[in-house]
């Protein structure tokens, strides 16, 4: 059996006295595309952030690409080199040009020469269909463009796994599809992806598996066909009714 991309066993997480995640068990295979959905406050962002240790878990195990995440910062570092993340608010570096945003990590983490890093950056900016903006600053781009740059910036590290934390939630409606198109392409190329999103159309077409969370628990896991047509739990049905009902 191949090593899972992500292995989470009996994981619990608290913020102070509030338990944010309850007994999470999750295995994600290389190449798999997993969509996590659920109402706000259900712990889905917290869960995805535990995968690259932007949040620390207190109990259980989180193993990413064979490395267990512990208090040792080297473990987090090793994982983060192989795991890209795309944020709701893009989090591009506003004082750096698009190109500089893209070459910073490859040059300082992977020790690429500037020429190689720039060639790679252009390649990925082309892939997210935005190569002509490489000299601009993030503030000069639309939200959709910024998010595509953020995806390219992550891809420049050539990660094995990509995490998407509500990548379209901060976008104007007309810009959502340009970001989802890029993500769909990425999925088609075989990238392992974990996406927290409310975009159920994307989930239906791209996901191998959909995970529904509520109040810090994984309530239901199913392939899209089963998930949308025959959800087993009342809470899943209620949630789907709310977001698909109109």
């Amino acid at each position, binding site marked *: 059996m191949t090593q899972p991309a992500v292995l989470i066993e009996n994981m619990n997480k608290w913020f102070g006295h509030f338990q944010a995640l309850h007994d999470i068990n999750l295995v994600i295979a290389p190449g798999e595309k997993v969509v996590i959905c659920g109402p706000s406050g259900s712990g889905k962002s917290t869960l995805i952030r535990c995968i690259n240790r932007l949040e620390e878990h207190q109990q259980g195990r989180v193993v990413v690409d064979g490395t267990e995440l512990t208090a040792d910062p080297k473990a987090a570092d090793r994982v983060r080199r192989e795991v890209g993340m795309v944020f709701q608010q893009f*989090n591009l570096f506003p004082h750096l040009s698009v190109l500089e945003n893209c070459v910073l990590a490859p040059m300082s983490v992977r020790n690429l020469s500037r020429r190689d890093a720039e060639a790679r950056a252009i390649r990925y900016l082309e892939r997210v269909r935005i190569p002509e903006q490489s000299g601009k600053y993030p503030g000069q781009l639309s939200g959709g463009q910024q998010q595509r740059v953020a995806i390219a910036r992550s891809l420049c590290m050539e990660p094995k796994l990509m995490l998407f934390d509500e990548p379209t939630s901060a976008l104007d409606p007309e810009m959502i599809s340009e970001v989802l198109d890029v993500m769909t392409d990425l999925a088609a190329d075989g990238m392992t992806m974990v996406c927290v999103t409310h975009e159920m159309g994307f989930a239906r077409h791209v996901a191998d598996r959909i995970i529904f969370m509520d109040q810090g628990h994984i309530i239901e896991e199913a392939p899209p066909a089963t998930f949308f047509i025959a959800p087993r739990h009342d809470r899943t049905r209620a949630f789907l009714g709310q977001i698909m009902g109109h």
Partner: protein
Amino acid sequence: MEFDPDIVIRNLPKLLDGARISVIAFALALGLGAPLAALVCAGRMRRHGFLAALAGGYVTVFRVIPEAVLIFWMFYCLPPLTGYTIDGLWSGSLALALVSAAYLAEIFRAGIQSVPSGQWEAAKALALPRRTLWLRVVIPQAARLSTPPFINFLTELLKGTTLLATIGVADLALQAYVLGAQTFRYMEFLTAIALIYFVIIFPVARFAEWMEHRLAASTR
């Protein structure tokens, strides 16, 4: 009594000597204070521990003691305590540097803390080494946000150098006072230096204001 501007012109060399001393005191206070501020700020960025407490204590102490008291204390009390005499320019500038470090450390800290948490998270998610995180991501953004308060602070520091006149440092303020006393022309000399300080400080303060507005507009 007549106002005689010529007497100021005639004594310009002495006033320029004073201005030179003021500039030296300013440069010493800033040159010693800013690196010390960076260290204090580094301590302040820690959440717990001895260094955090030390840096916190430093800021409290040197922001609470009036500058003039510290200048007197270092000039009059330090020599008998240590057995060394240092001249007024050095001890006064050092006192200003100690106070400057406390204020500058807080300016730097405010700048660093105003860098949004998403920036830190993006840098971490990209596995950027600490050095790169600080030098390429955090400090450039913090510096931009700290510039207006930093420039404002420079105007305060320049004004603060006039306190060194109280321990006999022949800065611009003391020169004017002495010349006033010698010629009984206080009006001319003191008005002249008030004008000189105004002409230097006013444009700088306006520049800081302008930058602040520009920053506020660009971060909206």
